[in-house]
């Protein structure tokens, strides 16, 4: 695991979520869905903030998460990461569906760029009309998400862990209860220890027992999860 310092270059609002821009010279290649833990040096912060890799552009990284209000351009961040498991977009995927179930969207935009790079058609399901998607991305309301089973060969979801049962119910899973295509989900839970302590606050119930989102997640194969409340 790497660690270091970043200076915040810019903070912007992207589709209702705050994103940081930092300059990085680190030769790291995080996956969308992986996260860094960062805190502002010299401020009285009790916890590090999980920052999800949201994309890159000419040596800049974009990072999304619940950004503390005290952070400003110029704030120096002490970070470690990348942590956890991210999304694995199959190189053969040509019909990619992305669905943001909650207002906090951290990692799906990075998947858009990856999918377009491999000439995939991309559909974005959301409650809100996103502002910064490439024009080739089709945008559909979240209510249309069950239609994705008819055409997608890869589906990526993002939601709060507490909302998983409601999300699962709304997906109208095909008979047998299994997704028809490779389906991954980023579950938002408190990521406090970064996998160092097994404190359990981020625990997620899977078909193989309890797993810790801080190190086994936060991205899971949808089919591996226990979906009942």
């Amino acid at each position, binding site marked *: 695991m790497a*660690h270091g310092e970043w200076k915040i270059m810019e903070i912007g609002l992207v589709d209702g979520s705050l994103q940081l821009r930092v300059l990085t010279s680190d030769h790291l290649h995080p996956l969308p869905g992986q996260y860094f*833990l960062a*805190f502002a*040096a*010299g401020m*009285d*912060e*009790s*916890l*590090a903030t999980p920052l999800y890799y949201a994309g890159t552009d000419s040596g800049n990284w974009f990072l999304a998460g619940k950004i503390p209000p005290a952070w400003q351009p110029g704030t120096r961040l*002490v970070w*470690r990461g990348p942590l956890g498991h991210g999304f694995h977009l199959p190189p053969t995927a040509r019909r990619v569906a992305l669905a943001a179930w909650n207002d906090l969207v951290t990692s799906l935009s990075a998947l858009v760029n990856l999918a377009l790079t491999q000439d995939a058609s991309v559909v974005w399901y959301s409650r809100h009309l996103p502002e910064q998607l490439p024009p080739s991305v089709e945008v559909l309301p979240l209510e249309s998400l069950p239609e994705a089973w008819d055409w997608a060969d890869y589906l990526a979801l993002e939601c709060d862990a507490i909302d998983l049962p409601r999300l699962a119910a709304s997906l109208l899973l095909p008979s047998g209860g299994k997704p028809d295509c490779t389906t991954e989900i980023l579950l938002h839970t*408190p990521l*406090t*220890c*970064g996998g*160092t*302590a*097994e*404190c*359990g*606050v981020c*625990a997620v119930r899977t078909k193989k027992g*309890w797993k810790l989102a801080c190190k086994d997640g936060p991205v899971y194969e949808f089919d591996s999860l226990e979906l009942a409340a």
Partner: protein
Amino acid sequence: MDAASRLEINLVSGWMNAAGYAGYAPPVDSNITSPPVAFVTNPISFHSRTPAADRFCSPYPCGFLLHTGWPNPGFRKVLKQFSARWTRSEIPVWVHLLAEQPQELNRMVRTLEETEGVAAVEISLPPTARDEWMLQLAEAALGELPLVICVPLDQVTAAWVSGVINLGISGLVISAPRGMIRNAAGSFSRGRMIGPGLFPQVLQALGCLRAYDIPLIAGCGVFDIKSMDTLLSAGATAVQLDAVLWRGWDNRNCS
């Protein structure tokens, strides 16, 4: 055993992790340049515990409230999985036990006495138990290993504290107090209070407990080197670090 036959904990001055903040076996994953003087395991119960259904982490100014239910695989599984690393450890390992039933606690302590690499037993007592029950549990944990008891910050003046000291325990940890916060649903949630906002109270508690002639470990509220040095100079034998190990240590102000 009584106060006159107290076992020494043989701890040098410095920092160690608090129980629940560094896993079940060393090393401590931290960016602090000085090494820890001991390692404390995550809390271990006799039977396995699953995560609390209502687990949460809720920030407030200068701290946060955490409730996990202390999930752990249970004493036997932890012993099987980690005791070899305790034996190999270059620093003393303290095994932290969740005291729930005297008989179970006693069985765990007897097993640890036969386990190589265990330097001390640290226990936390049920937060709302009666004084007599606290004393029964402490008595059940006494044996051939030094016994250290966690006293939550909000209980340092409780009657049971002098009672357990008189039993002949080897040290006290001033640990995180409990608090309540209103949750998103509008009801109240209980959990441990963690954060630098506790520091003045820890310092005050240390002053109160110094009246007892027993090693004291400051176990919450420390998030920087200045706080650590202040507690050590105020009489703490050692300092336990909690969530600052998760956040990361700010090395800018370290000497």
